[in-house]
């Protein structure tokens, strides 16, 4: 049912006629080094707070546009909180620096209708999650805030208009007496809520245990935790703006970052169903981008501005948190390709090691390459796999050491590790699909 609904919504255009603004943009170009782009955005967020909260249902809708001039890698952007011909013309004037830059009459821009408001699935989230927790023979007080996020984007660059993009996903915040769990989900169906229940039960069982200090033994990361690790030490590390802080971004191509079992791809086209993207937030076609091929850097993440500065870089990874922000190179959907080792064999000869199912937070220092990953809990590895629960775990290590420690990659990739990436304060949803990985001989700093 949901896929049909999304399909219909994906077909719905944000603006009805792209020719008029496209034509207007061509009039702005003064010389060949200039590119102009119009970005139209519509965002809707529906929030359902726990029972008893004031204004329990909160609906936020917004739409607006931005016009950007790119010249020699530099951007000049003007944005407005409304979609209309006069607003578009005013933004064009601001980036061009002249009045009536696109002529005397602003183009006619009409917007389509908002997608229908559906509340039922959000209202059912609480009972579904409670049932998933109860199936594990436990029960505890939970305050659940569920949100549905929808975003429509249309980018027009000169006479070229990329296909309109539509994203729909959900976020949950679950408050328990021992902490808060938060994350993104592609849907609120039972199969997506079940892993959330597992995380909540793990946190319940480890709630009063002291922090665990990982030694040099084996650490097995579940798919969610492996996704966060790769997000920090591969995706962030290979964003062109991060690389530029320590040198020329294109010089890392060919550099060995890990063993031959590491094949990492960023592919927005294979993100979960309602979050797939065929083009980025600059209207460039999204590609399946090999970040690491057999452990070596193949293609860093780049947007138009960075690709203009370094011609060997391929754009298509430009993302913007909103029309008010300039785009930057970011990951959308990270995939670690499966290895040949069956999942259960990852735990072989790992007795006494540590299993980490999820990291709640990760951070990479772009200058010295130090990475901090925090897990709310872990599990000791016994003879047959994960057994006793442990308290919180913090891994501090250099990114290169973390990647070098990956000794084996499981054969069963799972969607997981989705969350908000907050680099530079720009909040973006990121998705991943990873198998479990085994780390050996990891140097852990204090």
């Amino acid at each position, binding site marked *: 049912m949901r896929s049909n609904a999304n399909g219909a919504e994906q077909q719905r255009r944000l603006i009805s006629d792209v020719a008029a603004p496209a034509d207007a943009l061509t009039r702005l170009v003064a010389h060949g080094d200039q590119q102009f782009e119009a970005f139209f955005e519509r965002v809707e967020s529906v929030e359902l707070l726990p029972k008893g909260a004031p*204004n329990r249902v909160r*609906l936020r*809708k*917004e739409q*607006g546009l931005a016009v950007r001039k790119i010249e020699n890698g530099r951007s000049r952007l003007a*944005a407005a*909180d409304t979609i209309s011909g006069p607003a578009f013309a005013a933004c064009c004037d*601001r980036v061009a620096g002249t009045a009536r830059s696109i002529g005397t009459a602003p183009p006619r821009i009409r917007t389509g209708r908002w997608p229908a408001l559906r*509340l039922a699935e959000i209202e059912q989230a609480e009972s579904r999650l409670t049932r998933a927790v109860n199936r594990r023979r436990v029960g505890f007080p939970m305050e659940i805030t569920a949100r549905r996020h929808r975003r429509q984007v249309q980018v027009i660059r000169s006479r070229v208009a990329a296909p309109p993009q539509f994203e729909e996903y959900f976020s949950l915040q679950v408050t328990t007496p021992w902490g808060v769990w938060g994350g993104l989900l592609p849907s609120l169906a039972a199969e997506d809520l079940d892993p959330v229940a597992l995380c909540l039960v793990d946190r319940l069982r480890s709630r009063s245990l002291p922090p665990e200090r990982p030694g040099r033994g084996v650490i097995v990361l579940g798919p969610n935790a492996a996704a966060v690790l790769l997000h920090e030490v591969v995706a962030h590390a290979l964003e062109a703006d991060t690389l530029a802080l320590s040198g020329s971004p294109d010089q890392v191509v060919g550099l060995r970052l890990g063993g031959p079992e590491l094949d990492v791809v960023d592919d927005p086209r294979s993100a979960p169903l309602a979050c797939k993207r065929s083009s980025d937030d600059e209207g460039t076609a999204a590609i399946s981008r090999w970040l690491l091929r057999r452990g070596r850097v193949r293609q860093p993440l780049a947007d138009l501005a960075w690709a203009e500065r370094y011609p060997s870089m391929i754009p298509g990874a430009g993302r913007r948190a909103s029309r008010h922000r300039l785009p930057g190179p970011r990951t959308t959907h990270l995939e670690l390709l499966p290895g040949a080792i069956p999942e259960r064999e990852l735990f072989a000869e790992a007795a006494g090691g540590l299993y980490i199912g999820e990291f709640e937070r990760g951070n990479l220092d772009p200058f010295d390459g130090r990475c901090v990953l925090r897990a709310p809990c872990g599990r000791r590895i016994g003879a047959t796999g994960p057994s006793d629960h442990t308290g919180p775990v913090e891994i501090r290590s250099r990114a290169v050491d973390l990647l070098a420690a990956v000794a084996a990659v499981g054969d069963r990739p799972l969607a997981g590790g989705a969350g908000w990436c907050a680099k530079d304060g720009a909040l973006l949803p990121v998705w991943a699909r990873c198998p479990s990985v085994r780390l050996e001989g990891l140097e852990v700093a204090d």
Partner: protein
Amino acid sequence: MKFARLPGTRSLRLALGAVRERTGAPGAELYVKVGNTRRIEIDPWMTPLPVDPDDLDTQVSILDERGWALRAGGANRALFLADSGPLPEPNGWRRLSRHSLRPGTLRLPSPASGTSPGTAPSPSADLAEHDTDDEETAGRALLHGVLRRLGDRMPEARLIRGRLDTGASAAVLASTTGVTGRTALRLATVELDFAASRDGRQGHSRLYRAASNLQMLSADSIASEIAERLTLATAPAPPFLPAGEVAVSPALGCYLLALLAPLLQGRDGWRRLRELGAGRPLGPPQLQIVDDGALDAGWMSAAHDDEGVPTRAVALVRDGEPGEPLLSWEDDGWSGFAAAGCRRRSGWRALPELCHSHLHIGGGAEAPESIRTGIVHGCYLLDRAHDGRCHATFEPSTNGSAGSLGEGRFEVDAIGLVIRRGTVLGEAPRVRLTGTVRQLLQGIRAIGDDLRFLPAPGAIGAPTLLLTGLQVEAIA
């Protein structure tokens, strides 16, 4: 550039009437906000520095923001709806119906509960229009000035990221209870991130400063602050750390106060403050902790808050003793205390929430220099260490809420100087200052007269403080 026009209160009343008619809601409130911002960003690849500030390589964003929020409902059913763009015409509310209200509650302030009927004057209301083109030129000159002066002082300093925002906003609200109000604000913020390497030691410095207008930000003092911090951050670790007195700069004092800020609000905040003293004074007699939404020359100064309730100074700690709680209009009269306007919105998309506006430790009488030179055996801590710890932990109470302040511990990683008998013995690139909240307040021995505000969010202010009884240790 001109502001988008705000609707008049008559338009808002007409819209409120239409909303009530469509939804049957007993009460409703409309809040409309417009603003413009000019953002100048500079990245490492945009340097080296040109001679002329106008040639400085930057990325510029000119942002017009406009939106509104509606709250409607009553005791059992409520609605919150926010949208961008201009406020709909009275006949533009047709999509609303009685079914738009969902289970929930809505209470709105009324003039009788301490709010001012009619339009309340705002000290910044005359700032509704300004020339942002001139501000772009001035902004470039400021960033250029910072880079040039820092280059002179510390050639090895490398820019990581710089961002300057200048802007203005104005808002109007009206409710069916008769509350109306208008506010206007101007703000300039600069966020700069630098790194340096000396003798193989890496150091970082991040500076975030705000002022009511761009002209109040000085390139010279910003460059001087960054150079000072980078010098400390790249210094070798001291052979020993004296654990006596600790003087903290206004910047670090602001971070310490910011850790406590969320725990000092509302009825719970008052309970925690009372328990913290446990029958003894909270701090020395000269200690004042005040939140003042109407602070003279404050960045966020306004005659009323974002629900139209008049603002005023609230002395949370007065003469070292608990003063009065920061209460919203809903708690007006609780334990005999009066409410103050203290519910703010982070933007038009947000609901008003209880929070401070200009929370600060009142300035004392001592010159900061005399506090620093008066240290017999201790440290002068200048700022937070980049990416270091800065948090407070409180044992949760049995009902899951934050527990008592007295048991709370804080940890802040800082950069500073080792001082003996007023003489600087060496630098401390990273030390960890720890203690309990009770020790922090009761250990205050002197308060400087150099009160300074930092954006935190909101505004948090502190002068130089001399502290005793805290733990200081060097960390790698």
